């Protein structure tokens, strides 16, 4: 298991790339900034696993908490609402 780069509480931004391969970062969080809620462990990378690869190196997987306003702007129902999403480390950058 590779060492996890982010600790709970860290602010992270999701990459905006759109690879044609299978990937599990949903479009609605790309480019959005949230907070690491927990590290879930390390898992095979679905982007190679889904295409006959071995998934290595395993990627640390985080639960990242996003504010509803960060994701949906004025469409969000309430300020305090949140969405938590599992995101692999190679999709995350440290946010200022």
């Amino acid at each position, binding site marked *: 298991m590779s060492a996890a780069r982010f600790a709970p509480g860290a602010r992270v931004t999701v990459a905006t790339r759109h690879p044609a391969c299978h990937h*599990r*970062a*949903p479009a*609605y969080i790309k480019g959005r900034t949230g907070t690491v809620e927990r590290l*879930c*462990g390390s*898992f095979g990378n*679905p982007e190679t696993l889904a295409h006959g690869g071995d998934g290595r190196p395993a990627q640390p*997987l985080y*639960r990242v*908490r996003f504010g509803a306003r960060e*994701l*949906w702007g004025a*469409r*969000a*129902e*309430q300020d*305090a*609402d*949140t*969405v*938590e*999403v*599992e*995101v*692999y480390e190679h999709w995350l950058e440290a946010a200022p």
Partner: protein
Amino acid sequence: MSGGHDHGHDHGDGHDHPHPFQPDGDAGGLTEHMALVAAVRELLIEREIYSADDERRAIERMDARSPAAGARMVARAWVDPDYRERLLADGAAAARELDIEVGPTRLIVVADTPDTKNVIVCTLCSCYPRWVLGLPPAWYKARAYRARVVIEPRAVLAEFGTALPEGMAVRVHDSTADMRYMVLPARPEGTDGWDEAALAASVSRDCMIGVALPSAAVSGA
């Protein structure tokens, strides 16, 4: 396909007319992936890796799983604060403690509080904690639920007949990868002194997905 067919049968009401019908769900024919699955299955059985009966039994076992397992976990957590703590720390281990088999599932249990209501979805496909809740309902896999509940959870819950108190925040959990989720709802009013079996009966599948709230009125107690 047109909306009607002209087969001219007799309804016994003295008239003869075409009427619309709904196409069967599997009327689309065999896709490439369906053909691939069928071919691999036939090879596995032909080479005696497993038998058709093994496969049927495995499907029957999977289909027999039910939300009663999750409800037992919830009820135990309501009566035993130490168990609740273990359930929130490691859902799979807490399930096994009650002799509930969860296979390879990594289960995160999220607890409702007076301030926060939790709701589960899988926006990318239909990931669901089948070992503890059984098969997912059709709506859970529908595009409308998956697309809407992350954006307007209160509107979706209202359509399920669930109204949240003023000032309660909603936290939607999107199962996008390797974890599975189950909601630990708040124990309903009016259940003081109930035993675990009666408490479990108040917890339905939808309460553990997070779109409904347990109610003392639901249980037979």
